[in-house]
């Protein structure tokens, strides 16, 4: 092969010249399957980074994932780990039950913004406040992806969704809620950070943060929280590139990236 695209079929990557070494590989904890996510959906990127963190600490075989209800409900289809599917919003409570009964396991939840910041507010606040030794991956895409793009607590002011047809109105609907900052107020939280995956630089930073969050748990340091800003091209009614662009132009200014609490400075 001299030039052009190298095509492969799922699961059977074309063999490279023997002299070549693969420098970017699929993480082992991520199953080698096609996802159901829409083109340009950042759930895929975030899934990969979580899988990389599991690989990094070699914890795949002792990790329990807690799936939430939302576009990420098929967690068990993509991660090669044991999974419990929690009712909508209740993943932190389910994770609490799992972790307390198996305290030598690594337990993480993966939740959307409808799930965590709306219906599941009580559960996340109290799991965080108790300082449960779990890791929470919170994917904020400013909308209810799975159910067709309704307004979420994180929907931006003015953003039109299927239940805010005139745009989110801060006078009636309030301002978008900043979970990473809010949880950082709680004594039980060991680590809280906000990341994005809209540029290679942000991806690299997100990778670092997600690994740190898992490291907290591996080292038994308490509750760790990652808010990942994400694009939902489908429900934003945007092409993938435009949606990716919006994360940087609209979301990050309101939801600044950074570490909001870091008790051990890992």
């Amino acid at each position, binding site marked *: 092969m001299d030039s052009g695209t190298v095509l492969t079929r799922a699961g059977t990557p074309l063999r490279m010249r023997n002299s070549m070494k693969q420098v970017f590989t699929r993480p082992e904890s991520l199953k080698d399957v096609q996802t159901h996510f829409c083109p340009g959906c950042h759930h895929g990127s975030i899934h990969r980074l979580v899988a990389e963190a599991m690989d990094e600490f070699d914890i795949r*075989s002792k990790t329990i994932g807690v799936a939430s209800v939302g576009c990420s409900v098929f967690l068990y289809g993509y991660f090669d780990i044991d999974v*419990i599917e929690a009712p909508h919003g209740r993943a932190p409570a389910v994770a609490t039950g799992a972790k307390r*009964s198996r305290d030598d396991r690594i337990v993480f939840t993966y939740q959307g913004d409808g799930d965590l910041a709306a219906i599941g507010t009580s559960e996340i606040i109290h799991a965080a406040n108790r300082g449960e030794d779990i890791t929470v991956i919170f994917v904020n895409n400013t909308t209810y992806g799975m159910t067709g793009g309704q307004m979420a607590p994180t929907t931006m002011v003015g953003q039109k969704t299927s239940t805010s047809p005139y745009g989110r109105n801060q006078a009636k609907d309030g301002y978008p809620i900043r979970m990473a900052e809010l949880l950082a107020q709680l004594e039980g939280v060991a680590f809280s950070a906000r990341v994005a995956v809209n540029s290679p630089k942000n991806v690299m930073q997100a990778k670092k943060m997600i690994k740190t969050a898992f490291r907290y748990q591996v080292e038994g340091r308490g509750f760790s929280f990652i808010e990942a800003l994400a694009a939902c091209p489908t429900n934003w009614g945007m092409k993938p590139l435009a949606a990716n662009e919006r994360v940087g132009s609209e979301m990050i200014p309101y939801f600044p990236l950074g570490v909001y609490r870091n008790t051990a400075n890992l």
Partner: protein
Amino acid sequence: MSEKLFVKGNEAVAMAAIEAGCRYYFGYPITPQSDIPEYLSRELPPLGGEFIQAESEIGAINMLLGASATGVRAMTSSSGPGISLKQEGISYMAGSELPGVIVDIMRAGPGLGGIDASQADYFQATRGGGHGGYRIIVLAPASVQEMYDLTMLAFDLSDIYRIPAMVLADSVIGQMKESLTAHPRPQTVLPAKDWAVRGREAGEPQNVVKSLYLGDGEMEAFHWKMHARYQELAEKESRWEEVQTEDATLVVTAFGSTARIAKTAISMAREAGMKVGLLRPITLFPFPKQAYEAISGNCKNFLTIELSTGQMVEDVRLSVARDAEVSFYGRPPGAGSLPTPEELFEQIKKRYLNS
């Protein structure tokens, strides 16, 4: 003879849970069941167990879901409003074939109601107060000893059938103290929990605890599978108590504290020369249909007594022979509304004369 303890019904539940190997309790305070979390908050930590006062009943049922999913024995308890809040979680547990024990010490409702004895959560417990059409095992103790025995049984049945089990008692049974012979857990052979989520060790299959079924026919197959399991339960696990039913021309039927009150009323009736018996369902789901079928072959007169305007009476009507009469006497829940033995004796006399 082992020493007799003298304990509250609620405490007997907690003691039995510990004896049954339950080390994880998740709950939220509510009268008249708070003795259970209070007892366990004291006793579990020294045993290496975990007691969590959850942020809410919803938190608690979902912690139970999470703990049960990892294969341990765990429980929650509540009353009225709290049990309502748990319905979504119970439905998820049922849909995920998870065991787990839920205790409902019934209080007066609807709404905030009051804390007096009630049996008006019968429908909620036996018909699936949650969505989607499922059943849970429901056990109805009528004494402190049974609070102990049936709590243990609840853990076993729940593990064997992979169906959540509820201990459904009214606050009379929960609050009263009686002699209790504590005994070790029976050595039931339990199936391995190879479905449990504990981390996927090399070579093990991936375990997923879920209630999402999207493939064509998958959800329907789940329903029929459970339907068959419920039938197996009904055949093998129905439990009831019969008192002097052999020659009875009137059979009183009641569960929990009402059955206790009725027992004394029936003694009065027997003393007065009336042939009255008692049929007390111990399992409310499965409902002991076979007992009603059998007895209503001979006796055609049934009186159902409940602390409600009538719920179990529907199951009685659906279970007796077609030519049997089923009448109802209810004292809905609330302060000052517990019937007395004398009152029930009056009711028995009335129906007896009619029989």
